[in-house]
């Protein structure tokens, strides 16, 4: 039996009709064509499929699309501004070489975006804890850790600029 669902993905209301067993990750990729969300292990270990559900990072491979009905999802496609300007986390990963093959990057970016919203100036230890659920097989993590700190700086600068502009 198929289930009609309505999701707000990256600010856009999207409708789909899915079988109950359709994972949210597969719904995003196959039904909605948003292939930025990557699927690695499909049992919650690698973190590549992490998206934001009502602002909170979750594994999209450990959730059924039918359960997400009526909720807001942000995928990696929704992190940049409408004009294409990269978000602080995206800029930082590019600047600090926080990626090589890029497979794990969408999951890292979603995780880090939510983390920096809660903790704007994290310590090294807090960064490592925050990204502990995301696997990267290329970088050795050092540049990812640098990128998270750089993203925090960029985020602070962006905020300061906005406050300056508001004055």
């Amino acid at each position, binding site marked *: *039996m198929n289930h009609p669902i309505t999701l707000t993905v990256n600010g856009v209301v999207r409708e789909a009709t899915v079988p*109950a*067993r359709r*994972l949210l990750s597969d719904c995003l990729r196959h039904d909605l064509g948003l292939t930025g969300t990557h699927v690695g292990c*499909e049992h*919650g270990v690698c973190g590549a499929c992490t998206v934001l559900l009502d602002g*909170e990072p979750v594994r999209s491979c450990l959730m059924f699309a*039918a359960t997400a009905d009526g909720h807001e999802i942000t995928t990696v496609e929704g992190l940049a501004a409408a004009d294409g300007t990269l978000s602080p986390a995206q800029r930082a990963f590019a600047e600090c070489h926080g990626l090589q093959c890029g497979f794990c990057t969408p999951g890292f970016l979603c995780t880090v975006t939510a983390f920096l919203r809660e903790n704007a100036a994290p310590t090294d230890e807090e960064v490592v804890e925050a990204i502990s659920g995301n696997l990267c097989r290329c970088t050795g993590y050092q540049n990812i850790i640098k990128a998270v700190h750089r993203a925090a700086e960029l985020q602070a600068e962006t905020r300061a600029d906005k406050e300056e502009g508001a004055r």
Partner: protein
Amino acid sequence: MKPSPFDYHAPADLDEALDVLARVGPDGGKVLAGGQSLIPLLNMRLAAPAHLVDINRLTELATVEAGPGGVRVGALARHATVERSTPAAAVQPLLGQALRLVAHPVIRNRGTVVGSLVHADPSAELPAVLALLGGSVRLAHRGGEREVAAAEFFTGPMESAAAPGELAVSAFFPARPPRSGTAFCEVARRHGDYAMAGVAAAVTLDEDFRIAAARVACVSVGPIPVVVDVADACGGRPEASADWAAAAAAVRDRIEPEADIHATADYRRHLTGVLAVRALRGAAVEAAGEEGT
């Protein structure tokens, strides 16, 4: 790596959920809460239930109620919510101490405390916490409910007393008594993995700071959490002079670890003894500090 097909039920409230479970429970119906343990099993087809009853719309169960007697956690309260609850931490700090060791922050955004108890993985932290504290789980069915004590709730590896057609609606974690402390220590191959061995400890001191009560619950070393009373072994002395070696020996004698790809049975037994001392000392120090404040 995709689940096999199932009939999906999405009840809007508790009454509807119990109706659906009464109908499909005996027919192999499983409850889906956070899904952080169940969906991996479905994806790997280690489980293939005919019906899934999704309780994620039962927001009435997303509760954390901390009172003088303890903390009652509703079936839809996520790990992260309980972990961040200041009132819950004040009443029973072991909850937060254990939750920080449960998987990764992103998993804790979705997984539920009650779901973890019903899943009854002998390597999981929360069943050990419930067993150590002597808590209970409330099981509802159409037309009634029952409260099952932790000692009767865990019946085997991944097996609980929840019968087909029943829904675990909440769990109760008793409050920390005065002059008491708790700690949870574990060793895992990677941070966030299931522990090779882990020990939750609770210690209560008497008015002269001597150990009056001391219990541990061990994970990954038996079919269910193994609770050991070590008060006698500690010798009724203060933390600094308690017989921790005897306590560790008592724990090692009681557990029945098995070997697997990660560790031999002997190593698990050794590790559990070491972790028991670490957790007991931590709990005793916390209890002494609690008295000082």
